[in-house]
């Protein structure tokens, strides 16, 4: 499962594109025939009057039928190359687990309105973007994984779990990832589900529990990629929970470790210090995860388009020129 490769057009028979060479040839033939037509023009002293009588046709309008015919040729030539359009289709039985941090540092307000709310909104967007057939699980964690939902089709349960979080406690990323892996691969074997992925959102260093990098290696072995999102700005602080008079605690995100996790497990890492950006990342992930790319032939649309252009060119040029362009 990959996140890259935007929609593209490929060709099943690229040799057919050679037919495009017919277009410059057609242009040459057209100009030659037009030159021949005017070379054998009739001498006519009243040509000036005739020009007024015939009226002036704007230059571009004279070339509209020709242009349409050439466009039709191009479309038909492309159709000859059997163009294919890459589309994303949902994968049956795919599962995604959202691992969301709600440690104390998520209360920082460097992201509007605060990190936790931004993460919750973005996660809701993510759920909306996922194909309906994709199962979604959730693991929320602070001192340890506390809210856990095994992958399910019921989005409301996931939303409730996500909204029940409050920002408090430490950051046990490794433990939470382990739980998520357990939810996706209960037997500790790879490919328990056809396509699975973990989306990890965290805003700080792992402060308790096992090393998340070790868990990432396990994920790699289970072929479950972990997509990581580092949230927050480097100079963010939260008020000191011990005493309001004490200096505030710095809560910078830890993009390096998250990147390491993503790289080891085969996912991708993102960083975000802005609610809108975060939502954008989640939207992209939601539309890309649990889908696969399939090539669909679109030869027929090119052929039909070419025919329509051809007919339009003919209809436009017939009454004016009395012949096809």
């Amino acid at each position, binding site marked *: 499962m990959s996140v890259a490769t935007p929609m593209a057009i490929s060709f099943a028979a690229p040799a057919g594109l050679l037919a495009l060479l017919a277009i410059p040839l057609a242009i040459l033939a057209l100009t030659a025939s037009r030159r021949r*037509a*005017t070379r*054998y*023009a*009739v*001498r*006519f*002293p*009243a*040509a*000036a*009057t*005739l*020009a*007024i*009588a*015939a*009226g002036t046709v704007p230059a571009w309008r004279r070339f509209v039928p020709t242009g349409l015919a050439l466009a039709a040729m191009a479309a038909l030539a492309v159709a000859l190359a059997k163009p294919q359009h890459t589309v994303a289709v949902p994968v049956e039985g795919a599962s995604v687990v959202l691992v969301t941090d709600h440690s104390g540092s998520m209360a920082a307000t460097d992201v509007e309105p605060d990190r936790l709310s931004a993460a919750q909104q973005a996660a809701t967007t993510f759920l909306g973007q996922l194909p309906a057939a994709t199962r979604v699980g959730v693991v929320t964690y602070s001192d340890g994984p506390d809210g856990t939902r095994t992958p399910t089709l019921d989005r409301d349960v996931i939303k409730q779990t996500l909204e029940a979080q409050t920002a408090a406690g430490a950051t046990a990323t490794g433990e939470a990832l382990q739980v998520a892996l357990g939810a996706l691969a209960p037997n500790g074997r790879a490919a328990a589900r056809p396509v699975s992925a973990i989306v990890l959102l965290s805003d700080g260093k792992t402060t308790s529990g096992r090393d998340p990098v070790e868990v990432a290696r396990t994920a790699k072995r289970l072929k479950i990629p972990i997509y990581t999102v580092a949230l927050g700005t480097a100079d963010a602080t939260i008020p000191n929970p011990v005493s309001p008079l004490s200096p505030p605690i710095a809560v910078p995100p830890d993009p390096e470790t998250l990147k390491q996790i993503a790289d080891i497990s085969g996912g991708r890492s993102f960083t975000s210090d802005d609610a809108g950006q975060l939502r954008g990342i989640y939207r992209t992930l939601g539309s890309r995860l649990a889908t696969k790319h399939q090539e669909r032939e679109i030869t027929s649309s090119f052929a039909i388009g070419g025919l329509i252009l051809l007919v339009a060119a003919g209809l436009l040029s017939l009454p*004016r*020129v*009395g012949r096809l362009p």
Partner: protein
Amino acid sequence: MPLALLDALALAVTRRVAGALPGDRRAAGVGAGTELAQLRPYAFGDDVRRIDAAATARSGEPHVRLEVPERTLTSWLAIDVSASMAFGTADRLKADVAEGVALAVGRLALRHAGRIGVLAFGAGEPRLLPPRGSKAGMVALRRALRDGVGTDGHHEPGALGDALGRIGRVARQPGLVVVISDFREQHDWTRAMGNLRARHAVLAVEVHDPREGSLPPVGRIAVVDPETGQRLEVDTSRPRVRERFEALEAQRRQTLASELRRLRVDHAPLSTDEDWLLQLGRRLR
């Protein structure tokens, strides 16, 4: 050329330019003629043959008789030899008609010791042949006509007006000016024509071709203006185009006719598809 017709034409032309004939107009100075101008005493150097016997006898002193000089009619032919004259779809080219008219008028003008000057314009540098009489005049006219019309692609706006102005400058004595052209001229020539009319009798011979006035529906054709080189493709099967063309051409010729009438210039429209000599005579009568 039928001689009887030519004689009839001669009468018509003579009547037109009667104002410029001898006896009707006083010439400057004295010279050979039939009408007495003055009698004066003989001075050394006078031709003795001019001594008037009766006056000398009566006065006892030798007197010479001086007469009003007889002026011959000088005609000018302004011939349009632009490329547009080399066009004709009926019996002959417009240039052929122009040539015929020039020869007919030249033959008439050379009668009675008349002289003709020729100005061929519209094909590059205008060619001016000064007035000559008798056979020399005919030779000069034939030579000027032999060169034919100019080559295609030579466009000279204002050639007609310039030619008329030039004739006005070189034609000192009042005479007949015949302008043979298709009057397919964008520039204004009426002022020069008016100036010319003030001193001379002017005959405007307009040569046209029936195809210039109406088009047959022959589908799409490419035409080129012989002078400006303007090319265009026209669909002649469209009635609207043909009707508009006819209306515009009719309007152009009507404007020309009314303009010539306003200037009191004789107008002889000749077509390439008719007996132009007959038509010319009929027009002038």
